[in-house]
Structure formats: structure tokens, C-alpha cells
């Protein structure tokens, strides 16, 4: 099956585009998730920092409070108030940060509750100290259940921090797995694209090689065709030359025969003797001009007519068969006759005594007629009556 390279290239580039699109979508999604994860990590750290800040403010405030109880120094009073206020602010921030996290928020609320109790205790101690009841204040501090509260606050804060750390670990792990999956996806897409490009390169190289091969084959075919055309042309030239020679040969033969015929005619026509050529049916086939001149007949009046129209053969003395019949027999059998008497019958009615010889006319050993050479004998004259009768006899 013939593969259409253009279609394959288009399909491969389409697949590569789709892969690149998928990889791009995955990358963008991953980036968004990473950003979200990063926000969440920051948020977790913020919660932990706020928790730590709450504890720090609480402890610092507690220390300043005790100093104030002991010394009633205003600076200590200002200090613990400042720390407690700052602690409240951190609590508000922590509450805000854990607004969408029920478990954490629950712990923050618990810390707030415990902190509230601790602050209430501190107020009582401070009030006692302000009433100059130092002993009561000291006793309150000694009996301070605040340490229990503080321990509980530390415990809840620690639980909160642990919970946040655990969440951080889980999300960090999930984030790492997603990043890993994204890396695999991107590298796989890239690798697949490279494979497709390599495949396309191989296909194109193969196609180019096939085209070059076809081009070479075409050139070779053209060369062979050209050689065949040249061979055929040479053959045609040879055949044409041969035909031309044959044609020339024919023309030459015609010219030579024509020349020969004219030459023979010239000789025959110049002979003074009377030549009569007859067929086996005793019809005149040719006479020379001497016969035409002597008899007074035109050539068309003689050719094709019986010879006895112009040559009379008298009866012999034996009388068993007519001379004319013996003459006819001699012609058919191809025999010669020498010095036979006869009469030449002219158109104007005159009769001229003659002697004639007859030789058979042979064509490749076949008798086709006879040639008569007639010699005039002017001393013999005859009347034409009997001769005419003889002519009628042979005409029948």
C-alpha cells in the first residue's frame, strides 16, 4: 500500500500539536496548584507563627505581671498590658486565619478561652495589689491556677502546631507527587514529540530516497527509450535507403528495358523485308512498316485480324489437303517453312507474288506463334478472286 507522506506529516504534526496542548494545560494547571500550595504553606506558617506569638506574648505578659505584683512598677504594668493587648491581636489574627479550618479554629477558640481565664485571674491579682493587699496578691499568685491554665494553653498550642505541621507534611507530599507527575507528563510529552519528529524525519528521508530512486529509474528509462528511438530511427533510415534503392533499381530496369525495346523497334522498323508476326490462331500480332507500306492497310486494320487477309497461300499440286490447312498445322506444331510461294493482298485490290519463310516464335520452349519474312517477287501476278474465297474459308 502506498503511503501518502504529506498526509502522514500533517497527521504527525497534528498529534504533536495536541500533545503540546495537553502538556501546556497540565503545566499551567500545575503552576496554579503550586501557587495555591505555596499560599497554603504560607498560611500554615502564619497560623503557627501567630500561635507562637500568642504564647510568647502570654509568657512575656505573665512575667511583667509578676514583676508588677512584686514591685508595683508602672513600667511593668504598662508592659504586661501591652503584651496582653498584643496577644489579643494575635488571637484575632489566628482566628481570622483559621476561619475556614474548623479543627484549628476550635483549638484557637480553646486557647482564647483559656487565655481569657488567665487574664481574668491576672485582673483579680492586680486588683488585690492595687488595694494594697500584697499578701493576698502573693497568695493568689502562689495559688495560681494559672500555671495549670498556662500548661493547658501550651498543650493546645502544641497540638495546633503539630496539627499544622502534619498538614504541612501531607500537603508537601501531595505537592511533591503532583510535581513529579507533572514532570513525568511534560517529559513524556516532550519525548513523544521528539519521537514523532524523528519518525517524520525518517519518513521524509525515506520518501526523498524513494523519489531520487524513481527519478534515477526514470532517467535510465529515458536513456533506454532514447537508445531504442535511435536504433529504430537507424533501422528506418536503413529501410528507407533500401526502399530508395529498390525504387531506383525498378526505375533503372524500366529505363533499360525501354531503351532496349526502342532500340529493337528501331532495328525492326528499318528492315526492308516484310515481317509478319502471327499467333497460333493465325492472327496478326505485329507487322513492320514495310508491310503497312506495301499492303496499304493501316496498322489497326491488320493487328488482330487473320493473316490470310494479306497473305494468300496457293494450293499445292498434291491436292489431299489445302496448303492453308497445312500451313496452320505447321504453325501449331512449331515447324519451319522455307521458300514457300504466296501472294500479298493489298488494300487497293492488287496482288503481289511473294516467297516467304516461317520460323516458330518460342517463349521459353513454348510455341506462341510464328514469324514470317516475306520477299516480293514482282514477276508473278495473280487475280484476287480465288484468294478472297480462301479468306472467307478461314474466317468461318
Amino acid at each position, binding site marked *: 500500500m502506498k503511503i501518502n507522506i504529506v498526509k502522514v506529516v500533517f497527521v504527525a504534526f497534528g498529534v504533536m500539536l495536541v500533545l503540546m496542548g495537553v502538556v501546556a494545560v497540565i503545566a499551567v494547571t500545575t503552576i496554579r496548584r503550586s501557587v495555591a500550595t505555596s499560599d497554603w504553606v504560607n498560611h500554615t506558617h502564619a497560623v503557627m507563627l501567630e500561635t507562637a506569638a500568642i504564647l510568647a506574648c502570654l509568657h512575656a505578659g505573665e512575667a511583667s505581671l509578676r514583676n508588677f505584683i512584686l514591685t508595683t512598677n508602672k513600667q511593668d504594668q504598662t508592659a504586661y498590658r501591652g503584651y496582653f493587648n498584643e496577644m489579643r491581636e494575635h488571637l484575632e489574627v489566628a482566628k481570622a486565619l483559621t476561619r475556614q479550618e474548623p479543627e484549628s479554629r476550635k483549638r484557637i477558640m480553646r486557647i482564647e478561652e483559656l487565655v481569657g481565664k488567665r487574664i481574668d485571674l491576672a485582673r483579680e491579682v492586680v486588683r488585690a495589689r492595687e488595694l494594697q493587699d500584697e499578701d493576698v496578691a502573693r497568695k493568689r499568685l502562689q495559688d495560681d491556677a494559672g500555671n495549670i491554665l498556662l500548661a493547658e494553653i501550651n498543650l493546645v498550642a502544641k497540638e495546633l502546631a503539630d496539627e499544622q505541621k502534619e498538614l504541612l507534611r501531607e500537603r508537601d507530599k501531595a505537592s511533591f507527587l503532583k510535581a513529579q507527575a507533572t514532570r513525568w507528563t511534560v517529559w513524556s510529552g516532550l519525548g513523544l514529540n521528539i519521537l514523532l519528529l524523528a519518525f517524520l524525519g525518517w519518513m521524509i528521508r525515506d520518501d526523498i530516497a524513494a523519489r531520487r530512486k524513481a527519478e534515477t529509474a526514470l532517467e535510465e528509462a529515458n536513456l533506454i527509450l532514447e537508445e531504442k528511438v535511435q536504433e529504430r530511427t537507424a533501422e528506418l533510415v536503413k529501410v528507407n535507403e533500401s526502399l530508395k534503392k529498390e525504387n531506383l*533499381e525498378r526505375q*533503372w530496369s524500366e529505363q533499360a528495358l525501354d*531503351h532496349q525495346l526502342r*532500340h529493337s523497334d528501331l532495328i525492326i522498323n528499318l528492315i526492308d523485308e516484310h515481317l509478319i508476326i502471327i499467333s497460333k490462331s493465325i492472327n496478326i500480332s505485329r507487322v513492320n512498316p514495310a508491310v503497312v507500306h506495301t499492303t496499304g492497310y493501316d496498322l489497326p486494320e491488320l493487328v488482330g485480324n487473320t493473316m490470310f487477309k494479306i497473305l494468300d497461300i496457293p494450293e499445292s499440286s498434291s491436292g489431299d489437303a489445302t496448303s492453308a490447312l497445312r500451313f496452320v498445322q505447321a504453325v501449331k506444331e512449331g515447324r519451319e517453312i522455307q521458300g514457300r510461294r504466296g501472294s500479298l493482298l493489298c488494300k487497293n485490290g492488287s496482288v503481289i507474288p511473294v516467297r516467304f519463310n516461317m520460323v516458330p516464335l518460342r517463349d521459353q520452349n513454348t510455341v506462341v506463334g510464328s514469324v514470317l519474312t516475306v520477299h516480293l517477287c514482282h514477276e508473278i501476278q495473280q487475280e484476287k478472286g480465288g484468294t478472297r474465297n480462301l479468306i472467307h474459308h478461314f474466317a468461318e
Partner: protein
Amino acid sequence: MKKHILSIDDEAEICGILQTVLTMEGYRVSIAGSAEDARRIVQSDPPDLIILDQQLEDTDGLTLAEEIRTTLPTMPILLLTGLIFTADVIHKISSNNVSSYLPKTSKLDTICNEVKRLLGDSDHHQ
């Protein structure tokens, strides 16, 4: 260089055919219709061979051959004639003035081969 042949015949058709066929064989062919034309060509451009007809308008081939022999004694002369002679007769009556004799009824191939033979052209001669 092509060899030069002079064809002498009072029949233009005969001369034309000989000129065509001998040109195809690679020769340069001049034609003369009379003895006078032939003398002029022999003087101006001596041929390597003469093909001569016995019957001419102003003389006959054997007389012209004898005349040419006086100026070109070694040049081959081929006599072509329609008259019925045998080679022996021609040889006797031509006094060796004619190199070869062929009847006009001979085939063109025969005439060409005889021409090649007389010219000693081994490339053409079979």
C-alpha cells in the same frame, strides 16, 4: 575526399538514376549528356572513373573512350550499352580502351559493385 565519377549518357533519366545511386554509395558524380560536355568535364575536373554509354548524340562510346585514353591512359572506363554484345566482342573492338563492359539491363547492384571493383574501393566492395 570523395572519389569523382563521370557518367556520360544522352538519356537524362539514366544519368539521374546513376547519379542518385552512386551518390548514396558515397561518390561525387558528374553527368554529361554528350561527348562535348564530357570532354569539358574531363579537362576541368578529371574524374576517377567514367561510366560511358555506347550510343551518344554526337559520337559513340568506343570512339570517345579512345579519345579519352590519349589524355587519361590509366583511368578506368566502364562501358554501358543496350546493344547486344558479348564481353569478348567488346574487348576485341575496344582495343583495351574500355576497362569493363556491362549491359544496360544489368542490376544497379552489379553496376555499383563493378564501379567499386574498378576503383579498388575495398570498403565498399563485397
